[in-house]
């Protein structure tokens, strides 16, 4: 058994150099003045991002609004297996399945209804992790606002991938 390595951070009584108050206040003003001058004249490393004109570099894994990906022929990749619905901690996904009439095999399913309540969603990415078909991925589109709760329940048409996948603002996906 050994004692833990500790470092004592006590500073003891205030020494006279600090008691007269002048030194620390001048040094403190120096710090703020340095920041001020650097922001005004020096290197333009101002912290503020001029959003919405300038956007910061978002992560490629940013978890934003969902995208339902499509196959080459434009139909959804989703096979309505309910895995995302099961994995979702918020239960914000609603799926109603129907039989896919165009499928080569008889029992293939597709979603008749696929709704996500974006206001319930906690953007944890578990649906993406759960999907065995890469049918649901996330975009970096995170600037959303609604004036009514019903607007936030989005269905297949709103979620469907709009063009080639490269054109989408891709965020959280199964592999990178």
């Amino acid at each position: 058994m050994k004692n833990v390595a500790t470092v004592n951070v006590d500073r003891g009584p205030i020494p006279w150099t600090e008691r007269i108050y002048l030194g620390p206040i001048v040094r403190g003003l120096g710090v703020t003045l340095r920041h001020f001058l650097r922001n005004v004249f020096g290197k333009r490393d101002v912290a503020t991002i001029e959003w919405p004109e300038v956007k910061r570099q978002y992560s490629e894994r940013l978890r934003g609004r969902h995208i339902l990906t499509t196959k080459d022929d434009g139909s959804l990749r989703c096979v309505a297996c309910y895995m995302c619905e099961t994995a979702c901690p918020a239960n914000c996904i609603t799926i109603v399945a129907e039989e896919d009439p165009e499928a080569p095999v008889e029992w293939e399913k597709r979603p008749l209804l696929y709704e996500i309540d974006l206001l319930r969603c906690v953007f944890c990415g578990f649906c993406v992790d759960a999907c065995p078909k890469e049918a649901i991925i996330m975009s970096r589109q995170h600037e959303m606002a609604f004036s009514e709760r019903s607007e936030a329940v989005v269905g297949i048409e709103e979620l469907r991938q709009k063009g080639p996948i490269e054109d989408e603002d891709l965020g959280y996906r199964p592999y990178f």
Partner: protein
Amino acid sequence: MRQPDGSSSFLTTRVDAMLGWVRKNSLWPLPFGTACCAIEFMSVVSSHYDLSRFGAEVVRFSPRQADLMIVAGTITDKMAPVVKRIYEQMAEPRYVISMGACACTGGFYRAYHVVQGVDEFIPVDVYVPGCPPTPEALMHGILKLQDMIQNGETQHDRLKHGKPDTTATAG
């Protein structure tokens, strides 16, 4: 001043537009921050995002000095009377942004002590999804509210002109 057919006169429309412009550019937010979203709200007012660029940096914790209530965080049944009281203490016109999944709908807390959306007891103008929403998302919500104020589409305007309140579901 109303015309006989119910529409507003030229003068009052101009005054309304002017008032809307003034109001939208000097929002005084009251951050009703309870949880994680409050931390993101701190990011919005700090140097990286700097809400003052939109004229809304004068954060006031007194409801009597604020006109925009940002409900940031989970509201529980225990907290609900407090939120309602504070909303009622705000002077009109007053606006509400519900920030984040919990405040909007209860989020993934479908639970015995969590309000399933603050619109159960106060009217909400803008819902911002996210858990928590990114600072950009909240600022986007504030910009949307500014547009709504300018165009007279807020809950306050709806109530003033006698249109039914579309979101408040319970008193």
